[in-house]
């Protein structure tokens, strides 16, 4: 579910960074306004708790495989949306920096996908509405499961949009959606059940913890208008950046047209995932598609900024690449050696 730097364009990464930075600033202000400095250590320690909880596996009923907690929903239920968003952001930052899960540029996307939707959509509009002020076991179960499912579905959809807009991956929108949404439906249900199990436990053992959390972030305080305005601004910025992007690289639109038409080919990738198999498949698929590909190549020549198709330049590029790498490696060795003698 974590986006990687390698798959996004600077335009998408930058936009999501801006949106996320804005949200972090807004949430920090809100948390400060609550004037509850008990919350700052609480947030930090709960963030660490999410890491710890992720290390405890459980068996998923019916499958025998094991899963672990994601944590966005639990944080929101315990801390309220603003503090939970900040905590989720810091969990993801640490994951990005230490485990290289996602990346620095993709961090904006990841925080938005995994933080914004559970904290500001799924929690206020689903969990709070269902659970209300008089929680029961059933209400918590239904509320947490639904909220987790919806939050993850939106997050997965965010991943799809960001990937497709970036245009680095060739995956067409339709296929990617069909790939991501069902997987995350399953993950969402498990996540919801687990969240409910933990929340029910806490509610039984120490109901005042949940009450306190609910009071510190009542629904009325969450200004839906602000969020909608924020979303609108983000959409406009994204749209603007995208149209600029689309005009620089027209192939982004081209492939979506081409490949959504060619869906029948997409059944095969499953078995062809292995590299060598894929190569064979490519060779066998060489002839049937030939005429089609010729047309495509023409389009590509016109539309893309790919500088060199003639083999002379390609060969010199290859030689040059190898030589550059060799030089870089030599430089590394030299620096290392100097380091040791010094």
């Amino acid at each position: 579910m974590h986006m990687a730097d390698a798959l996004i364009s600077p335009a998408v990464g930058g936009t999501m960074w801006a949106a996320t930075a804005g949200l972090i600033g807004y949430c920090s202000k809100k948390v400060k306004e609550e004037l509850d400095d008990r919350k700052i250590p609480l947030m930090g320690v709960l963030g660490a708790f999410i890491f710890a909880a992720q290390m405890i596996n459980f068996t998923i009923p019916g499958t025998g495989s094991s899963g672990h907690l994601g944590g966005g929903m639990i944080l929101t239920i315990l801390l309220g949306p603003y503090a939970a968003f900040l905590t989720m952001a810091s969990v993801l930052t640490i994951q990005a920096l230490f485990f290289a899960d996602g990346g620095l540029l993709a961090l904006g996307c990841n925080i938005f996908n995994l933080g914004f939707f559970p904290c500001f959509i799924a929690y206020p509009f689903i969990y709070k509405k269902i659970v209300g002020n008089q929680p029961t076991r059933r209400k918590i179960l239904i509320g947490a499961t639904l909220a987790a499912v919806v939050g993850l579905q939106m997050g997965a959809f965010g991943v799809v949009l960001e990937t497709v807009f970036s245009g680095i991956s060739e995956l067409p929108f339709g296929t990617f959606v069909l790939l991501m949404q069902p997987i995350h439906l399953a993950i969402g249900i498990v996540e919801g059940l687990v969240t409910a199990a933990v929340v029910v436990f806490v509610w039984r053992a120490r109901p005042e913890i949940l009450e306190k959390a609910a009071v510190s972030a009542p629904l009325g305080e969450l200004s839906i208008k602000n969020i909608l305005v924020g979303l609108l601004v983000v959409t406009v910025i994204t749209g603007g950046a995208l149209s600029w992007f689309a005009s620089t690289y027209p192939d982004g639109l081209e492939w979506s047209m081409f490949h959504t038409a060619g869906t029948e080919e997409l059944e095969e990738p499953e078995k062809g995932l292995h590299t060598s198999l894929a190569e064979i498949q490519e060779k066998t698929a060489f002839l049937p598609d030939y005429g089609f590909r010729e047309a495509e190549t023409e389009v590509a020549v016109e539309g893309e900024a790919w500088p060199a198709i003639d083999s002379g330049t390609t060969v010199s590029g290859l030689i040059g690449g190898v030589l550059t790498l060799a030089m870089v490696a030599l430089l590394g060795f030299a620096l290392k050696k100097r380091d040791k003698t010094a």
Partner: protein
Amino acid sequence: MTKIESTFFDIGYMDRLSTQETPIHRLDPRAKLLTTLIFIVVVVSFDKHEISGLVPFFVYPVVMIALGNLPLVYLLKKILLVAPFAFLIGIFNPLLDRELLIHLGPVGISGGWISFASIMIRFTLTVGATLILIASTGFNAVCMALEKIGGPRVFAIQLLFLYRYLFVLVDEAFRLVRARSLRSFGGRGMGIKAFGSLVGHLLLRTLDRAQRIHLAMLSRGFDGKIRLMRPSKMQIADICFILGWSTLFVLMRLYNIPQFIGKLVAGLVQ
């Protein structure tokens, strides 16, 4: 089980790496943070079919690893460990984009394979740069840099908290897991129900701990600010570091050095 321990061990190891004394470690954290960000943005700004233009960028990680005395093999292993996501998304490119872009004699290489290779190179570069940042700077310093650059203080402070208590709580979770697996026969008690109360207990203990910490902090005069002893001042070396690398990145972005060298060599041979 071994995985849990190794993940935890990992954080500790990265932290130890960051306490070394090398020219790279002595730089201001802000300088390294900014340079890393510029590096990543420049790398991902390339066209999706670019390979040769990306190659010179390996100079940055290589120099940082050499001067910062960082373990190359360990970092490569870490990069490999997280590669599956980029690989799984990227591997669709060769299947979907089959137009031939390059002819090497009789062998044609499709655009898909080229963009796939490009994705994997970008991935190695960006993930490598991020890991190098942490291994040469340390997490506390990165948080400080974040605040100094203008990030919200609340956010920076609770990042520091999270990091500090990570070690304690992971230890506790590990003890819980061990206790459970010692008492579990044939996979009993590994389901969601036991998990709920297990994690619930951990959560309650965590909340109590947070309260104790807060009281302890209050009694030591905590007023919402964290004061750090280490003076951090941007020095000429730091500014040179940022400007030098950024200029190099921009130049490497504008001029395709491998193409140039290749042409030169080809010209000499002829």
